[in-house]
């Protein structure tokens, strides 16, 4: 990916975000769009972790949970403004990632997967069991961000759907921009290098544990911010955000879209977010079709949607 590619990717993304609403027949589509952007944001984080650095995580929903509950708890208990709570969540997630990342990133492959899985489960367990604080499995309310009413006071009237579509779209753009910057930077190259060969990366001067940790922390922050946005937009949050299935969903989106590619992440998120909405027409068959689509995409586009299609276009299959 060269410098030009970066601006093309960002441009495509920005255009899509800006122009799609022209085709929206109802407010519901803004909601779906916003969800896609939120999911894409956490998936972009995973692209950095899995695609760049080659480390797997089955526990990133844990960070989304931290971000989400920071927005639910901090305004209520600490009197923090929700916007600051997003930051607080990101900081806590980053610190947590740094703390647990140190020991577990020594593990490889499935062993790392099971360790991250354990972390995710711990988080979701605390959120589920500490009912007094978190409302338990039934969840809790999340304070309003307040920005929409502020905009309204300034004379800019937006529906809830439009507002969150914009916010999430802008945050996703920023997230994608950062991730694309990283790709072609020394840090990003170091991450991709250790993905190829840890020994060789070390011998060219890459501090392998540190780079892995960086990727882990950065991706955790992405997931956390995504979790926060989800909580704020829903106004209500349950421990499901931190659940194992959510982690799996995130990884699936990343792989479906093409795990090395930022634009692919958005596509993966779009597909997996849209599918259940589209498949409602199949009612009973929904699950079946959803699974089939996943399998078929992976069979025919094993590198993930976007990279595989790009390769076909460039004529460099295999």
């Amino acid at each position: 990916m060269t410098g030009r590619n970066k601006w093309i990717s960002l441009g495509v993304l920005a255009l899509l975000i800006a122009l799609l609403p022209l085709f929206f027949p109802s407010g519901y589509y803004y909601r779906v769009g916003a969800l896609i952007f939120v999911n894409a944001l956490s998936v972009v984080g995973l692209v950095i972790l899995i695609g760049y650095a080659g480390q797997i995580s089955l526990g990133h929903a844990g960070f989304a949970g931290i971000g989400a509950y920071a927005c639910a708890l901090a305004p209520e208990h600490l009197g923090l403004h929700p916007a600051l709570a997003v930051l607080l969540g990101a900081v806590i997630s980053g610190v947590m990632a740094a703390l647990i990342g140190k020991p577990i990133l020594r593990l490889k492959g499935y062993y790392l997967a099971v360790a991250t899985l354990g972390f995710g489960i711990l988080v979701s367990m605390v959120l589920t069991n500490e009912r007094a604080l978190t409302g338990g499995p039934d969840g809790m309310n999340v304070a309003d961000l307040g920005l929409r009413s502020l905009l309204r006071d300034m004379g800019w009237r937006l529906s809830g759907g439009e507002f969150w579509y914009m916010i999430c779209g802008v945050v996703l753009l920023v997230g994608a921009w950062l991730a694309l910057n990283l790709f072609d930077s020394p840090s990003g190259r170091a991450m991709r290098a250790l993905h190829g060969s840890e020994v060789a990366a070390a011998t060219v001067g890459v501090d392998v544990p540190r780079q892995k940790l960086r990727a882990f922390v950065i991706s955790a922050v992405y997931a956390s911010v995504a979790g926060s946005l989800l909580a704020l937009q829903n106004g209500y949050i349950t421990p499901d955000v931190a659940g194992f299935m959510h982690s799996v969903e995130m990884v699936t989106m990343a792989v479906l879209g093409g795990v090395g590619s930022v634009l692919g992440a958005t596509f993966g998120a779009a597909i997996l977010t849209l599918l259940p909405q589209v498949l409602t027409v199949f009612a009973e068959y929904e699950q079946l079709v959803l699974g089939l689509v996943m399998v078929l995409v992976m069979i025919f586009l094993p590198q993930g949607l976007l990279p595989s299609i790009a390769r076909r276009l460039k004529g460099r299959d295999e």
Partner: protein
Amino acid sequence: EIRLGVSVSATGPAAFLGDPEAKTIEMLVEQLNEAGGINGEEIALTLYDDGGDPNKARTFATRLVEDDEVVAILGGSTTGTTMSILSVAEDEGIPFISLAGAISIVDPVRANVFKTPHTDRMACEKIFTDMQAQGITKIGMISGTDGFGASMQAQCKEVAGDHGIEILADETYGPQDADMTPQLTRIRNTDGVQAVLNPGFGQGPAIVTRNVAQLGFEIPLYQSHGVASDAFIELAGAEAAEGLRLPGTALLIADKLAEDDPQYKVVTAYTEAYKAKYDQDVSTFGGYAHDAFALIVDAITRAGDSEDPQAIRDALEATSGLVGTTGTYSFSPEDHLGLDLSAFRMLEIKDGDWLPVE
């Protein structure tokens, strides 16, 4: 055509709730439309499966309101999904009847939000009243960590004192656990426990019941309305379940209701139709959906205008004396639940069948 929206958890961890709910509503809509609809207007049902995911539930609620333009929403199998749908309904002024248990759904009262199930607190009170009558004062509790179990656990702990009941042991199990003997052993080894209470749904209570038998408990076992269906006896085994008590609705003893029982007609009609259509036994949860549907049909009929959600809401709030499977509903501006404790009946398993205790 009257557009009615439903979002329930027909699959996923809460499928025990959502599956019978979905089936019930589909069946009732079909029946009603065949019978000519409401004032000649058919019902167009849009039913979504939110899989128990509150996030999806919110999306579907938005879709129902914005895209499908429904006049009312039923559903929200769990408290989590209900809370997600609820804020959409409130924002958009669409009447919403929830099928979930938490008291917080209708307390404080929200303009557009109603619910059909008893609250968890009512179930606890019913159980404790029965225990009190049996002279039980000290119990051990073991509950699932899912939403249903956790909420029951919290509510029961809150009201136990009011009934002079002391909870000496408080254990939990995961919704998918395969063996609860360690927790039950702890309860057994707690001095003075006179009964065991196990609020939960899914396989947990069946396994607990079997484990209780395995460990040779001599004290009574109480379950909650979460397992009030014939299938439960089969899973737990009639032998292990013998003597077990729980608060249930008239549904379970449809065949034993006196013909002059006010619920007799409603309950038998529903159980028979359901059994005939799906070859499955009804459960309490399907009953909640049945009642929600009955309420909305009644309200739309009375409202006279099937296009105006607020008219329907107002009619709904004016519901009075509607007999459902769960109990008799009367709403008011201060009360959007409208059931009292009498709706519950204490049941006991005898020879593999449900029997009313009173």
